[in-house]
């Protein structure tokens, strides 16, 4: 008896370890109870648009008796840390939005962790790929196969504080020249004219560059920041921030939003998710299209979040069925009306109800001129963090334009593998 006690304890301990290690059965997520397939979805949607996604899941569950979808939201960082290894080892959710950065899909394709989407075609039960905005399809297609669907499609608009505009006697800008003079005129008494974030944010600076006819990389993924056009597209904005102080330097997206919410900034370029928070903060809010560029054309940033399926899910059919529902006309129309997001579907562009909605119509009207940030540029994440963000940060802190654009270009060309020809 005396001797068997420790043995039993050891055995129990070992048992715990063994069960602890074999908890997974080697396939992702889900399970079935009484013939109902259970799918898990993991996303980082925690902003003002979150209820819109939850509604899609709720409606899907109500209309599909044989499938039950559970969606969870965690910070994007957390997903980025857990998902690559979870999907590789056949754990984790069946479906996930791996990142708010659509370029991340390339990494998952490389590690063969995502399922190619094959349930495509017409009708509500299939993924209507040919009805998606074409740049979104391109973004998620690798070697001719589609690896994710857009969970949403947002454009950026110009938010402005009506009270501050009225007090300064300034009219909302419609051209880039007016935008610049308004930013200057509205900067006074502790308020900023146009608040700009340069790190941990939805990209704002590329929009400013596009407005002036500049860009970051060309079709061969070579940097064009240090070309004449690239430099002249940065110069006026750097001047406005560094000399005229139209915005504090070095803000994150959250800090810029907080300034606008506090009524300390007259304008901010932001996506539809921000509207709810600004209204809640009591801002007398105006939303207009991003002013026209120097050629009189509309341009803004388009942003999308990928929704992909684990390559090791037990229920590839049902998971694709869910993506088909998510991107269906019915679900997307309802989603746009609740969240103010423009539609990712081209067949909803002229929908009378969406056109009548004052918020959706502003964001939708800019879809044709919207451009993705560094679409399918190799190492896009590093091009952003190591080169672009650093360049904007040093320019606004006083580094000479030529020096900053030269070193950013060298870094970008190195990262993208541009040969320089």
């Amino acid at each position: 008896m005396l001797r068997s006690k420790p043995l039993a304890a050891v055995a129990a301990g070992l048992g715990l370890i063994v069960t602890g290690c074999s908890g997974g059965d080697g396939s992702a997520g889900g399970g079935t109870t009484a013939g109902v397939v259970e799918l898990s979805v993991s996303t980082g949607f925690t902003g003002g648009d979150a209820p819109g996604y939850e509604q899609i899941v709720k409606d899907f569950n109500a209309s599909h008796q044989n499938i039950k979808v559970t969606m969870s939201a965690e910070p994007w960082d957390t997903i980025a840390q857990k998902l690559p290894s979870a999907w590789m080892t056949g754990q984790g959710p069946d479906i996930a939005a791996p990142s708010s950065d659509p370029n991340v899909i390339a990494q998952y394709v490389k590690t063969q962790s995502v399922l190619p989407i094959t349930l495509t075609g017409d009708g509500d039960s299939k993924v209507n790929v040919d009805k998606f905005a074409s740049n979104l399809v391109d973004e998620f297609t690798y070697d001719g196969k589609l690896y994710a669907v857009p969970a949403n499609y947002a454009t950026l608009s110009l938010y402005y504080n009506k009270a501050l505009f009225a007090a300064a006697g300034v009219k909302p800008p419609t051209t880039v020249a007016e935008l610049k003079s308004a930013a200057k005129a509205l900067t006074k008494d502790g308020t900023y004219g146009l608040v700009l974030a340069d790190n941990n944010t939805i990209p704002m600076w590329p929009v400013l560059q596009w407005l002036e006819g500049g860009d970051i990389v060309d079709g061969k993924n070579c940097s064009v920041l240090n070309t004449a056009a690239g430099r002249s597209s940065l110069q006026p904005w750097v001047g406005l921030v560094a000399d005229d102080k139209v915005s504090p330097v070095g803000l994150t997206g959250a800090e810029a939003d907080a300034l606008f919410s506090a009524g300390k900034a007259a304008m901010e370029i932001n996506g539809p998710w921000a509207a709810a928070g600004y209204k809640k903060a009591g801002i007398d809010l105006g939303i207009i299209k991003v002013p026209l560029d120097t050629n009189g054309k509309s341009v803004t940033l388009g942003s999308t979040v990928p929704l992909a399926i684990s390559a090791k899910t037990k229920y590839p059919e049902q998971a694709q069925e869910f993506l088909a529902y998510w991107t269906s006309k019915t679900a997307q129309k309802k989603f746009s009306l609740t969240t103010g997001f423009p539609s990712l579907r081209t067949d909803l562009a002229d929908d009378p109800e969406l056109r009548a909605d004052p918020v959706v119509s502003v964001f939708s009207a800019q879809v044709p001129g919207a451009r993705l940030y560094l679409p399918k540029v190799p190492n896009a994440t590093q091009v952003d963090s190591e080169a672009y963000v650093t360049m904007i940060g040093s320019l606004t802190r006083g580094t000479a334009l030529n020096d900053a654009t030269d070193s950013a270009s060298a870094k970008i060309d190195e990262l993208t593998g541009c040969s320089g020809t």
Partner: protein
Amino acid sequence: MTVLSSVRRVTLRPRRRLTPALLFLAPSFIILGIFVLWPILASLWYSLHDWTIGAKEQPWVGLANYVELLNDSRFWGAFIHSVVITVFSVAGIILLGLALALALANDGVGNRIIRSAFFFPTVVALTSIGLVWRFLLDPDLGLVGAITRSLGLGNIGLLQSPQLALPTIIFVNIWRNAGFVMIILIAGLKGIPEDRYEAARLDGAGPWKLFRYITLPALRPTMLFGTLIMTIQSFQIFDLVYVMTGSGPLFATDTLVTMLFREGFVNFRTGYAAAISWSLFVVIVIISALQLRFFRYNDVD
């Protein structure tokens, strides 16, 4: 019968003792092996490859990751920031902790309350501390901004300035940990026998000499412990930097661990990140060994 059998058991024990002892240890060994030793060794293996989590082929690169690291200015920047944070933080934490411990060693009610106040930041999660400080330090919306404005200094972006961000992180790190060192030093102070002070006083020692020749030598083991723990912790600083500055502005607060995180989990360069972690490991082992050696030498002295 029972007596006989128990006697027999006793005589048998020495020969069989080893097996149950090992079995007792086995659970710990297995857990340590699986969750500590194995990952450490696996990361060394990763660092010798161009490792991508989930990829079918992991190209062997030998020491190429380490060579690249040595030529990476970002790595040296992060290394220097880590060293600066550690040196200034540890010095600040130990000095402030010692000063607080000496001032608050007596057990009055007031002292207990003040001690709790200083100890409080140690109990709070670093992430919360980072978020609160970041909000306080916001030049436009925070308390510190309001104070600097009312003093006519304008808006000072402590975390937005590449020159001031690192000192600010160090300040918050000192503020967070000084209370912990204070508590262990108070415990150390209480362990010093009163008769040593008595004897020294009889020999005519003043307050400074009492401190220099009685208190400090007696506190040495406690200070060694505090210094060692704080050095390792400061070298591994991550949460504060990640929450307060995200390595920015312009990588001015990038540390070895934030760089490791960025390479491993944002840029998906697992092999390179593993090489960074091994460099960090080597540095910490060297520093710890030096500290132990240094303090032990003095102890013998």
